[in-house]
């Protein structure tokens, strides 16, 4: 199991464990993290699983593909360096301890 932490926009921390091979979005849904809607269930179609990745973890992530990058360009308050779609981050042992922030709005 891989430990990860969600920091919600009001500063609450949700710490949880998830199976390697599943996504950060799935971990959020399981832990009922507020603010991650994930309407398309991970199809990279909705952008409502937007998160900001803690800068320390950015070097460990693969780059976003074109579809994800295009969606991110239009999310509420994008951060070119740290914005990702949680459903496109697959958890591996290298990401143990990952911290992501949840935006106030997925609008």
């Amino acid at each position, binding site marked *: 199991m891989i430990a990860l932490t969600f920091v919600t926009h009001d500063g609450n921390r949700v710490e949880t464990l998830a199976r390697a091979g599943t996504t950060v979005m799935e971990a959020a*849904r399981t832990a*009922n993290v507020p603010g991650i809607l994930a309407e398309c*269930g991970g*199809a990279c*179609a909705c952008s409502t699983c937007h998160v900001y990745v803690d800068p320390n973890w950015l070097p460990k992530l693969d780059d976003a593909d074109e*579809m994800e990058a295009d969606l991110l360009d239009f999310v509420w308050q994008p951060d070119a360096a740290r914005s990702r779609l949680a459903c496109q981050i697959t958890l591996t042992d290298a990401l143990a301890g990952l911290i992501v922030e949840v935006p106030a709005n997925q609008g």
Partner: protein
Amino acid sequence: MKPIVIVGAGQAGSALAAKLRALGSEAPIRLVGAEPVPPYQRPPLSKKYLLGEVERERLYLRPESFYEDAGIELVTDTRVKALDANTLAVAFEDGASIACSAIALCTGAEPIRLPEAVGGTLGGVFTMRSLSDADALVPAFRAGARVLIVGGGYIGLEAAAVAASRGLEVTLVEMAPRILARVACAETAAWFKALHESHGVEIREGVGLRALVGDGTVRSAILSDGTELPVDLVVVGIGVRPETALAEAAGLAIENGIRVDAFGRTSEPGIFAAGDCASFPWNGGRIRLESVPNAIEQAEAVAATIMGVGAAYVARPWFWSDQYDVKLQIAGLNSGHDAVIVRPGDKPGSVSHWYFAGPRLLAVDAMNDPRAYMTAKRMIEAGQSPMPSAVANPAVPLKSLPTADALLTEQP
């Protein structure tokens, strides 16, 4: 304390239960579903799950422990047999019944099946609604098998795409003059027809199915133009009917689904409905949507109503479909459009179709063009409309499309 009983443990039912807890409900919550599995997502059934790319557990919306931890009593494999609107009670098939503080109907929709008289009950004939439907279909999707898909809506087209990708020989028949006739413009239909043909799928428009023949198992299909087509299996994707039987028997008002108001209230006090089974007010009329976002958001609106913090539900319709390596994203509802503007995308193969009614933007179909989809969705939700001439000109960047105030410029 009497429980809140949610009938139907699908996308809407599970969202409703979770939202009740998120809003602080301390009532006992019972989520009752006829299927033998916890609530799951259906969209992958005709996409990645059928392709064999996701395991079954990952379809579950939440692990079973979630319901336990949240104090939601999940009762699977159990059908609610009747409702009593006067006493606010639900009855089960084994004769038991419970008195409720509120009842939420999230019963979804049932696929329309081919009648037995035309061979609809032969072996090798499948529908696409439930996990068990998909599990039955997966082993029949063998390379080289000849499959007939009946119905050119999104589910039929997705099944065709998976079949072709897995090396089946695919024919799709659509009775209407073109595929996607009910849901998309001729431009979008033609685009998808060409896509499928480039993958070797034969699409026959304006051709219906007369009968399936076989002894026990389907062997051939007789089409409305008289041809007899040898087939090994048939996938029927001719639409769904809202599941309203319980509501109807209990005397609730039905109008293309269970009739609810903007707060999700049915015609009977204490009984609510959400998702594919419910029709709700929209633009002075009434609509029923069959989509995940609507199921979630309407269910959450009902939870808020039950908790006394309800606000009128305003649908923000959107939809997606995956076929081959194409992602279609749709924002808005196109009904009532009188013009379609085609806008080439920034990348090869990407394009978007913008539906207008007069000057007002109603909807967009974006094929591999998430930027167009996101732009249009924001505009539609904000009640803004871009100038059609600017939309048609790909040199005008999406982020600087000039807008016209739709309401001020609308024709009387």
